């Protein structure tokens, strides 16, 4: 991976401080985002994908907090910025769209105004100029009648349109990185495809990198260049998309891929990974996946595996690949 990393997350640790103890929601995650690429983060709910995104954005609120690691955006560490400095970065250099287009827009303001606000915050434009920019970006994200929609309230728009507004808002300042947290989960399948294509197109046009967080392997396959598989706050496997789908190495990834229904196979029953995501407060002593792993050995229950290099640019957190070099400590 010799490309320039526009975003370099190293050993990120974010914990929740609750009554019952400290919960390691993100536990030593390292992610590299090359410029202009789409990076996927997949995993089941509660695996720490969203927490990672929120940590990067500096949006973690009490009782959650980043406790370790570094996040370098275009070479600059943004983990220790003051609120003021951070606000200059957010929405400008790095932006985010969320899973729930229904609730992510403020119901009491017209959507155009909400997007315009992002411009006014970061660029020295007059209100009229900013408005024109909003209409332009609305057009770019495929909102019909952008002049009219400018004055619409969120509840007057369909979910797909709202998500387009969100994308518009995230893209309007030409950020270096855009994090999309399950941007299509709440949408119909047809609209999902449109939105994904839109993101891909914008990414290309503007040279913006995207971190796409999803639990849907199909989506990953469709748009991502590189994939991180997360489980219980840790990256379990990371690889280029083709590599991952060709050689899913971690038992968890294998399970995930098996559980996608395939049209060309006539399986009697859909595969499921047994068990549930473990309680982060009471993680197994060894590999976090050991309780559900069908390949688990004794060692897996007592010792934590590192991320081992299974192939070039392909990391797996499983003792099976211990022969490769360690990618983290």
């Amino acid at each position, binding site marked *: 991976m010799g490309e320039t990393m526009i975003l370099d997350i190293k050993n990120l640790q974010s914990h929740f401080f609750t009554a019952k103890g400290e919960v390691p929601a993100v536990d030593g995650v390292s992610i590299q985002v090359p410029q202009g690429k789409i990076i996927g983060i997949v995993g089941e709910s509660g695996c720490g994908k969203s927490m990672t995104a929120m940590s990067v*954005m500096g*949006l973690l609120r009490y009782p959650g907090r980043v406790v370790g690691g570094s996040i370098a955006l275009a070479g600059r560490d943004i983990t220790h910025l003051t*609120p*003021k400095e951070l*606000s*200059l*970065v*957010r*929405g*400008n250099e790095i*932006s*985010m769209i*969320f899973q*729930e287009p229904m*609730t*992510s*827009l*403020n*119901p*009491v*303001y*017209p959507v155009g105004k*909400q997007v315009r*606000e*992002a411009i006014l*915050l*970061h660029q020295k434009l007059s209100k009229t100029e900013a408005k024109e920019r909003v209409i332009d970006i609305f057009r770019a994200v495929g909102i019909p009648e952008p002049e009219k929609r400018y004055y619409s*309230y969120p*509840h*007057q728009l369909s979910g797909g349109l709202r998500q387009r507004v*969100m994308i518009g*808002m*995230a893209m309007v300042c030409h950020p270096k990185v855009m994090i999309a947290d399950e941007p299509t989960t709440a949408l119909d399948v047809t609209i999902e495809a449109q939105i994904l294509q839109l993101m891909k197109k914008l990414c290309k046009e503007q040279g913006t990198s995207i971190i796409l967080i999803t639990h849907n392997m199909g989506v990953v396959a469709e748009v991502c260049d590189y994939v991180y598989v997360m489980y219980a706050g840790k990256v379990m496997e990371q690889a280029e998309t083709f590599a991952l789908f060709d050689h899913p190495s971690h038992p968890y990834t294998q399970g995930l891929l098996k559980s996608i229904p395939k049209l060309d196979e006539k399986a009697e029953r859909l595969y499921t990974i047994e068990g549930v995501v473990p309680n982060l407060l009471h993680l197994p002593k060894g590999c976090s996946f050991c309780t559900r792993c069908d390949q688990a050995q004794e060692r897996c229950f007592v010792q934590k595996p590192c991320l081992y290099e299974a192939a070039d640019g392909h990391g797996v957190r499983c003792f099976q690949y211990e022969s490769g070099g360690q990618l983290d400590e």
Partner: protein
Amino acid sequence: MLSRILKRIAISIPVLVGVVLAIFIMLRIVPGDPVTTMLGEHVNPAVIEKISREMGLDQPLHIQFIKYVANALQGDFGTSYRLNRNVTQIILDAFPNTVKLSLLAAAVAWLIGIVAGIVAAIQQNKLLDRLFMGGALMGVSMPVFMTALVLQYVFAFKLKWFPVSGFDSWQAMVLPAIALGWNSAGSIARMTRSNLVEVMQNDFIRTARAKGLRENGVIVGHALKNAMLPVVTMMALQLSSMLSGAVLTESVFGVPGIGRLAVNGIETRDMPLLQGTVVFTTILIILGNLIADLLYNVLDPRIREGA
């Protein structure tokens, strides 16, 4: 929109009738003969009988009620026993003072309440939260007449910043407005705080933060309007407690308002005056509810579009 307004008004009508009926019945089951009480010493029984007849008190209750409602619909709340004047006129004379007092007090209450509420919400569960909520709640925690008296003592009597009593200049209005407003500030602060805390959990707040707004901007620009919407409906509730408080504040500061009339009505056992005052006040509150509801509709785009 129009149909909603009409529907809302239609709902208010049975409430209004209910209010009048409730008051009417409550005041009729008063023990003792109102005329005897009203006339006091030196009275000839023949005079009592004559006056009872003239006031229509010898007629059956339902006839009295129908007559009262019929007259009230024409804006006539009857004649005060004691003052021998048209109750409507007495109320209308006192009304502007109470309205002035209530509006000023509302301004004070909202100022204290919202500021305290915002600070408390931002500093949730920290020292400033407790201090500001405590300060706002202090006003509710003392009997309002004591608050009034202490304010009067310190700022009018000792410091001589304001006159001790009266309501004829802006200086004179300051203390009554603070006494009454502070009394209502607690509940506004409490509601602002809990609404803000709740609104701050919303996804769109995260969006606002994500687009680079700083915390103050998020609160003022995005959370406040949402949080204030339900507080608008509280204006009506506030009106009710404010008019209750006005009864006491007006007495302490000698403001010639509606609250005083209610006290007059009780003290002199002047049933038509008391009845008129309570009915009129209640109509005000129902109207206030109506306006708050409509205002809410206008302010909240989600509901506004309904038309």
